[in-house]
């Protein structure tokens, strides 16, 4: 349902993405991996409308999305958990979550959604009155994911959700993401925990220097010798 066709993104004169194409099918969980500075974040931001793409097309259920403002794209049910969490630091945890359901379309029923998020992350319920800026790293990641869930996305894009989490918390996050996917949510997962990522996704893309270097079933990528050498440290 999400199709990215041959898009290019430039920062000034530097091309961060070159003719990148990608697809996420309904209900699918796809992986996007790549080294530092490969352009993963840039790609997610281009889909979300935060950075303008030149050339190519982005379409969502057949509808062309390119050139739309981020708030418009959010309205389509495409929600990103941004790199570095990007919480609203001077707002409480609960306000952060409520902000997730800002769009009028999802505002109704946000009460249930909130309860659901607290159920998934009881730690957030404990800290609901604390300012998000003073949360620990892991707590912030939970809040960011919780906020995204409040928007009840149809496509959830996660940018390195396990960054800075304890192994246990990271595993939990992966488990939750996996479960969300099993409940029918489409997911595009960017992560440096390549092994785990490829384990829970169906298909994967490898981005190198702003271009797609490889794509295919995750299981196949995991066995690929080049992936093994460059990304798995084996």
């Amino acid at each position, binding site marked *: 349902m999400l199709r990215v066709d041959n898009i290019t993104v430039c920062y000034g004169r530097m091309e961060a993405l070159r003719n990148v194409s990608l697809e996420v099918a309904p209900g699918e969980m796809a992986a996007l991996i790549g080294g530092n500075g490969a352009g993963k974040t840039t790609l997610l931001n281009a889909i*979300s*409308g*935060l950075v303008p793409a030149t050339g190519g097309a982005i379409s969502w259920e057949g509808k062309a999305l390119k050139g739309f*403002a*981020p*708030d418009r794209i*959010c*309205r389509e049910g495409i*929600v*990103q958990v*941004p790199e570095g969490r*990007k*919480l*609203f*630091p*001077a*707002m409480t945890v609960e*306000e*952060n979550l*409520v*902000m*997730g359901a*800002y*769009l009028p379309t999802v*505002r109704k029923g946000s009460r249930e959604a909130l309860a659901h998020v607290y159920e998934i992350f009881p730690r957030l319920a404990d800290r609901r009155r604390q300012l998000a800026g003073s949360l620990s790293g892991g707590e912030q990641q939970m809040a960011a994911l919780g*906020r995204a869930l409040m*928007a009840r996305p149809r496509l959830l894009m996660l940018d390195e959700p396990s960054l800075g989490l304890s192994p246990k918390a990271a595993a939990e996050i992966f488990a939750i993401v996996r479960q969300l996917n099993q409940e029918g949510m489409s997911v595009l997962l960017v992560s440096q925990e390549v092994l785990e990522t490829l384990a829970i996704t169906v298909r994967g893309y490898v981005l190198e220097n702003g271009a797609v270097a490889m794509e295919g079933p995750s299981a196949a990528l995991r066995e690929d010798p080049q992936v093994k050498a460059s990304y798995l440290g084996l």
Partner: protein
Amino acid sequence: MDAVLVIQSLISGIMIGMVYALLSVGFSLTWGVMHVIHISHAAFGLLGAYLAYSLLTIYGIDPVVSAAASAPLLFILACGVYRLLIKPVTKAKEVIVASMILTFGLAIILENIMALIWKADPRIMTPAYASGALILGPFYFQHPHLVGFALSIAGIAAVYFFLKKTYTGMAVRAAWQQPEAAQLYGVNLYRISMITFALAVSTAGAGGISLALLNSFEPHSHNLWLIYLFLVVIVGGVGDIVGTALAGLIIGTITGLSMAFLPFQWVNLVTFGFLMVFLIFRPHGLFKQGA
């Protein structure tokens, strides 16, 4: 010291303090949530006062009515100002500084446009009740003070409600803390900023009118008002609405008490001195403990 004097000084001090708070609340809002120090805020307040003055002297319309009527007018005007002037500088590296310089220029322009329209002569807002008072025992509640006080409570409550209880208000706060993320969750940055700015400016109108009920005003009066804006906002904490109201209360109390207990010559000095000491010990306003 005589109790009646003390209480009477406090009564008027506090009521006037609240009027300053009303004038300041929008200033605090643009500063706190948008990082725009809106130097021409008081000039817009003064514009509201002049409009109300003209409506009163020409059509006999009560300033309280004008305060309500000027709000949408200033709102629209402020939307235009935002679109044309403020928006371009929100991309500056240091928005606070750039916005200050820009709106300083705007304040000069507004001041002199007002001087051209209304002339430099001082004006006084004198509705029928201008120098009346409600008398309770030995105490006088001067009508202009009461009106200003009431407008202040209403205006500040409205802003508070907007920020804390409406989705738009929450989006405003979110957007200025983390614009990228806010956009990702459906916030239209441009619209939100414009609304915030315009709302702030429209409260300035009510503040200016209330202040004009208390003192005479001239095209340059906004310069003086601006100083009070800074004081109130800083004592209350930038962007803190409840703090702003309390700051009005506190500054009013200090002025009132020093009026009652000190030679008048020392009142202003003590007020500013106190504020300085206050800031040294509570550098982030009333509530915030520090970043």
